[in-house]
């Protein structure tokens, strides 16, 4: 970051335009970076931006979807809301996928969209869409500004709402006349919004009940979710686990909330998660879910999920309690604060026998799956070995980004993540095309960090235009394309459940190296094992972007797997285990 803007007090400026007010409001909220794309209805704001190039860095992506995914990752890395500008109509509708993604993955993003003149609203004017209506179900809050005087308060609210409580995306739609109107500007940060209740005070009875359940459990297990990362409770979780001796598993978005080399960590939950935690969930007598929401990819068939267990659910969002899974003790609150209070109430313990059982299953998975995946005797590359190898060569605080598909699950499984890593992936929405722009946003938030992207040949082509954004900013991003020339994850399902009827999953791809060259990004394609080490070395040799295409085994599968609709304990380790 070249400019650092210091905390500013309330700012007052007479007779400025709504557009300038937008810019000054952002500066007041310590915004440094904006991802956006101009157009007619947002031109006044872009015109105002022209005078603030020292205070604000604007990144012109190549598509609005690229802008919002970049902003999402920027938010995850920087801890500040990601800011997006887009014009009305198609500009605004191009944001919808990103909003939905940010909504379900609790990411603070603030989108500012231009809108037609207020007197044209509802008349089907050129590039008018009801973006407030369209985005309503996929935003935490949205608002249409029709008067300049509303701008400071609405933006202050937007910042407060996006980042507090359970974070989420906000969209502010500003009509062109409001952007052009002059008014007397006064900016004051907001620290409360009526009807918004961000941080529940912790109920002591619930807390004590949870502690009692924990102290009397024989086979307890912790499910760690993204809430731990959002509240910054990694240390508290570690202390809690070290004291109670309870085995931990993580959700996809919870990865990095707990170090994967801790002896009580047993991997990821759910559909392509690890063997031990999936099987043991259904044997546990107590499930302690922290900052997670029992997504169906985690639970499998809920009617056969954790039926032997009492359930403690710790979450900041009361509407997640009893939504998918009934709880015995619900502690509603910020994960960090709850864990802080819970730690002194729980007994020091070791669950040796129980943990041994986890370790046996872990070993079985290692022997039957992992060892073969990462040290294959196949002629062709397997994605797991690539991820495993690169993981070993990355810095310990690297930002690891993925797209969606088999390579995503492989990255989640085989990249050895610790709490210093940042792992960025599209979880709840599974948005192909997320990865490349997200890697760029991550790099903008932390230019000094190593950013590694694992992407598939399908997803790469959904937002491939952002290679140009990476080129222009010379971002230090290592793009690793795991090219199986298939929509691999769908192909895997077709192989396992549709008798190999590969309906429209064969990709017949272009020459990706030529594409990388066209964008002046250094690149290399590897097909043979003996080429890999030198290619990786070349990739990490400098701080420029690099595009590494690894041609992998076409019909590789991700195992273990909980087949759709099965119980988590029916997880299989190989295709042969599939019940006919």
């Amino acid at each position, binding site marked *: 970051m070249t400019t650092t803007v210091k905390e500013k007090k309330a700012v007052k400026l007479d007779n400025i335009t709504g557009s300038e007010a937008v810019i000054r409001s952002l500066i007041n909220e310590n915004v440094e970076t904006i991802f956006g794309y101009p157009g007619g209805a947002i031109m006044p704001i872009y015109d105002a931006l022209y005078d603030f190039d020292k205070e604000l860095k604007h990144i012109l992506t190549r598509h609005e979807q690229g802008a919002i995914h970049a902003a999402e990752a920027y938010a995850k890395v920087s801890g500040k809301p990601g800011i997006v500008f887009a014009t009305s109509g198609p500009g605004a509708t191009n944001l919808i996928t990103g909003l939905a993604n940010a909504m379900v993955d609790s990411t603070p993003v603030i989108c500012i969209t231009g809108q037609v003149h207020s007197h044209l609203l509802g008349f089907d004017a050129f590039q008018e869409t009801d973006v407030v*209506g369209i985005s309503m179900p996929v935003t935490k809050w949205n608002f249409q500004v029709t008067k300049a005087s509303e701008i400071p308060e609405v933006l202050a609210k937007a910042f407060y709402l996006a980042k507090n409580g359970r974070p989420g995306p906000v969209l502010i739609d500003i009509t062109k006349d409001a952007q052009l109107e002059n008014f007397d500007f006064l900016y004051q940060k907001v620290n409360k919004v009526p*009807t918004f209740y*961000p941080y*529940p005070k912790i109920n002591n009875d619930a807390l004590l009940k949870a502690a009692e359940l924990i102290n009397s459990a024989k086979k307890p297990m912790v499910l760690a979710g993204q809430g731990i990362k959002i509240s910054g409770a990694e240390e508290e979780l570690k202390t809690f686990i070290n004291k109670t001796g309870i085995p931990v598993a993580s959700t996809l978005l919870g990865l990095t909330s707990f170090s994967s080399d801790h002896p009580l960590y047993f991997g990821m939950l759910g559909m392509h998660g690890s063997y031990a935690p999936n099987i043991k969930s259904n044997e546990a007598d107590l499930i302690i879910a922290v900052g997670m929401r029992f997504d169906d990819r985690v639970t499998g068939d809920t009617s056969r999920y954790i039926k032997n267990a009492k359930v403690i659910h710790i979450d900041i969002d009361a*509407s997640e309690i*009893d*939504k998918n899974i009934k709880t015995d003790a619900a502690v509603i609150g910020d994960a960090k604060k709850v864990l802080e209070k819970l730690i002194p109430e729980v007994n020091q313990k070791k669950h040796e026998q129980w943990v041994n059982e986890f370790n046996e299953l872990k070993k079985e998975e290692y022997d039957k799956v992992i060892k073969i995946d990462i040290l294959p005797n196949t002629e062709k590359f397997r994605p797991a070995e690539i991820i495993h190898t690169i993981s070993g060569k990355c810095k310990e605080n690297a930002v690891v980004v993925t797209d969606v598909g088999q390579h995503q699950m492989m990255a989640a499984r085989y990249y050895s993540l610790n709490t210093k890593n940042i792992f960025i992936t599209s979880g709840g929405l599974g948005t192909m095309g997320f990865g490349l722009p997200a890697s760029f946003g991550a790099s903008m938030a932390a230019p000094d960090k190593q950013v590694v992207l694992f992407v598939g040949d399908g997803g790469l082509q959904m937002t491939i235009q952002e290679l140009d954004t990476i080129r222009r900013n010379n971002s230090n991003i290592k793009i690793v394309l795991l090219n199986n020339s298939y929509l691999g994850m769908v192909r895997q399902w077709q192989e396992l459940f549709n008798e190999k009827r590969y309906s429209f999953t064969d990709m017949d791809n272009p020459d990706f190296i030529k594409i990388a060259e066209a964008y002046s990004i250094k690149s290399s394609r590897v097909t043979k094992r003996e080429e890999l080490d030198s290619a990786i070395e070349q990739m990490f040799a400098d701080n420029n972007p690099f595009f590494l295409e690894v041609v992998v085994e076409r019909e590789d599968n991700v195992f273990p797997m909980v087949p759709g609709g099965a119980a988590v304990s029916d997880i299989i380790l190989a295709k042969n285990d599939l019940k006919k």
Partner: protein
Amino acid sequence: MEKLFTLLIVTENNIGLLNHVTVVFTRRHMNIRSITASESKIKDIYTYTIVIKNTRELTDIVAKQLEKIIGVFKVFVYEEDEIIYQELALYKLPISAINEGVGIEKIVREHNARILSIEKEYILIEKTGHKKETQALLETLEPFGILQFIRSGRVAMAKPMKPLEEHLAEKENAYEYI
């Protein structure tokens, strides 16, 4: 088991809020049986009265999701025996109904309804009551030839004494804000 639930949704007076509220129901394929919106005794605070038929479990989930909407203060969920409620019905009959001897006035009196206005061509009758009652009057009036009939959604009040301000203050105190 499905039951009738009356939800009192206490909100700010914002454009688009009703839309946001109804989407929470439609997303779950829940049919809203009746809906009424009105200002409360507190300025700028509105109450939607929404009636649905569903299980307690799903209704509670929906109520919590409604409470998350920015603009919604609080959602109260009531079963039938926890509230007092009313609906309003209007009936338009041709003026000839007055002259038909059967004594429209007597019917109106017996049903605890009232004649709202008598015009040159028609008369208007108003009745407040539960659906069963307004329906009974509708059926009784049928032979006169009903020109138009309309019934409002339910408005409801909970039986307990606690005033809204107290509920809101309690909720306010249950949270922190920075």
